[in-house]
């Protein structure tokens, strides 16, 4: 006689240890198997888009810091690029190089967080997380030298960066570049040689190329399906056209690939930073832009390859000092579209890992 059972609906979050912030998933379980999942968010909604309409173009930079607060540099970069496209400003060479160095360091820091939290979600009681934070701390120290801040950086300005890197930055960066590959190898061993981790992540929550493209998924999640789409390569902005790097690709599009790809991308980011350090030459770091930028009437959509995917800003100007419309195309938010398809049929424990593998940041999802 079959046992009578009924599905159970559980609200995972907003108070849950591993939802990466105040994220909520309304999940229907049959035992431990997920039948249906519905993401619910907005708990961190601060109305950034509305706030920006009351601020000048420079003041909005501080708002972008608070979107994806573990990757402020790339947010800054995407925003100032949009402003420059709108206002027709060309930043000086040294400013662009500094921006790329800062953005790639930030990508490493963001991927470190993602990798550390994966292992935490897998239940490895904070040890790998602490190790990843150890290296992230050094990147934050470098940022502190650049601009005095560690998390909310506001380093970039329309037309460049707000100050040149100090003397002591370059030797510190070189030491970091020398030591980091060793640590990345360590993470790679931790990831690919741990049988439990491989058992838990290989073949789980597979996302196909078609599903990913149809769901507007970008960034490492898309590349993990094996689709080569990196805006730094297909649409080089700033100085990415002058540096050599590879685009790491996954094969199966499962949780394992999504994390492996982040480790590989850290290596490529180091390569980019190394080449930028070689190529950078003395000069001004900021174009001659007035304090109150007044772009001409019009609109511009600019996008970069952020650590989490395509980070775009759509700006509409009415000729005044404040943007008329400031729209954020946040990768975390849009990548969540496919979450439901990835979860159905898997188990409660996989749900946490899959969510972690998309690498969302609630500051960016809720804006």
């Amino acid at each position: 006689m079959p046992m009578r059972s009924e599905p159970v609906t559980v609200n995972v979050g907003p108070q849950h240890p591993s939802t990466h912030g105040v994220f909520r998933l309304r999940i229907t379980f049959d035992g431990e198997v997920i039948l249906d999942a519905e993401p619910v968010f907005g708990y961190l909604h601060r109305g950034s888009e509305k706030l920006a309409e009351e601020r000048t173009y420079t003041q909005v930079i501080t708002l972008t810091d608070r979107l994806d607060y573990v990757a402020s540099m790339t947010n800054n970069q995407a925003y100032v690029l949009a402003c420059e496209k709108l206002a027709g400003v060309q930043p000086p060479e040294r400013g662009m190089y500094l921006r790329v160095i800062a953005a790639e360091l930030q990508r490493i820091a963001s991927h470190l967080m993602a990798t550390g939290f994966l292992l935490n979600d897998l239940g490895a009681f904070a040890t790998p997380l602490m190790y990843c934070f150890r290296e992230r701390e050094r990147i934050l120290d470098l940022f502190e030298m650049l601009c005095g801040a560690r998390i909310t950086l506001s380093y970039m300005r329309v037309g460049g960066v707000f100050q040149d890197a100090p003397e002591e930055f370059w030797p510190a960066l070189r030491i970091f570049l020398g030591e980091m590959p060793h640590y990345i190898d360590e993470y790679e061993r931790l990831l690919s040689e741990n049988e439990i981790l491989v058992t838990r992540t290989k073949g789980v929550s597979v996302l196909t190329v078609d599903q990913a493209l149809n769901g507007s998924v970008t960034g490492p999640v898309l590349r993990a399906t094996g689709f080569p789409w990196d805006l730094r390569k297909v649409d080089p902005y700033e100085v990415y056209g002058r540096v050599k790097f590879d685009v790491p690709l996954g094969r199966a599009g499962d949780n394992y690939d999504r994390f492996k790809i982040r480790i590989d991308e850290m290596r490529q980011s180091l390569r980019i930073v190394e080449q930028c350090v070689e190529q950078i030459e003395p000069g001004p770091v900021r174009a001659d832009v007035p304090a109150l930028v007044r772009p001409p009437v019009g609109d511009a959509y600019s996008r970069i390859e952020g650590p989490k995917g395509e980070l775009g800003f759509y700006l509409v100007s009415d000729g005044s000092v404040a943007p008329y419309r400031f729209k954020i195309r946040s990768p975390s938010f849009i990548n969540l579209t496919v979450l439901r398809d990835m979860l159905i049929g898997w188990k409660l424990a996989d749900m946490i890992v899959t969510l972690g593998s998309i690498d969302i940041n609630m500051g960016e999802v809720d804006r």
Partner: protein
Amino acid sequence: MAFLEGNALFRNLYCLLAGNSGNAQHCGRDGLLPAGWEWLAFALVGFAITFLLLSAFLLLTMFYTYLERRLLGRFQGRIGPNRAGPFGLLQPVADAIKLLTKESIVPQGADWLLYNLAPLMMVVVMFMVLAVIPFGKHTFIADLNVGVLFIIAVTSVNALAVFMAGIASGNRYALFGGMRAVAQLISYEVPMVLSIVGVLLLAGSLSLVEIVEAQVIPFFLLQPLGLFIFVVSASAEMNRPPFDQLEAESEIVAGYHTEYGGMKFGLFYLAEYAAVLTTSGVIATLFLDGWEGPLLPSHVWFLMKVFFLAFIFIWVRATLPRVRIDQTMAFAWKFLLPLGIINVFMTAAELLLFGHEEAGGQGIVLSTADLWLMSVVNFAVAVVGIGAFSRLVSLRTPALPVSAPKPSAAEVV
């Protein structure tokens, strides 16, 4: 009076109290109480020893919680608790005071009786195991002739306590924890018991004291496979990583004790850490020659072995990610169980081959040379067995071809 033989602690205290009535061969002098009151002396001494051991054990557990947090700190490249008292040694005291002064809450949807009973049951069970563990030469509460059976029986009640807590809380995460508890704890009992059978065959007794005395060479040399299976299933039984499914912090918040606060949570916490020490004690007794060791006093040897094992459990906790629940179950049934059966049959066959009946009918005896030969054979079988099974039994999710559609919700149900 079997209790007075071999149990030095009990005998000395008893002789201090009891009159010299028929116990001359044990005491040889008068005690404090008049003759005829031996029953009172017996009861008082039993109570005193239990009290003594429990207090000592609680202190050890407190120290162990400190040690675990401190070592985890080291493993994770941080310092760990170092504020309360010298080197933070008073941290467990501070924690206990904090937990004791918290308000005791029973959630509205909870079953009052079961909710309050579950943590008590958990702790009592943990302490009952202490009754049969020999902490040193002649130091134990009772030397039951069914000691191993007693431990297995008593620790299985654990599953019931966890399930009670999970059901009674009226919380869905707790329910998940309870469901997992029933599945996991019962499954891992089987390989655990099987792994002990090898030891029992070698020792020819269920009494823990006799098992220690039977270890001519420590049993971990003779039972490497048994030790491996026992350690793995014991870490599943006491809910330690990588099998901490019952509370799985990143998945089901705190599992079965999600709704518990204050000292009721404290009791779960205590039971969990006490379990590590008692399990280490059982492993030390069964496989590491218990209290035996050169030079140092037997109690020191025993504690050293226990804390060495506890350290290994902490190490594992700091290192390994969690296994998924279905993989945990598959591991027990597909991997540990066959290995356990192989171990039992192998040990039995070796005893038949090498052993010879002693004249007194005391069971099978082996010479030391045979034992070493057995050790070599068993190590070889352990390595080959574990290697072969890890190749044969794959717990990985079978890879889907990239083009194939994912299973839809309807098909999975």
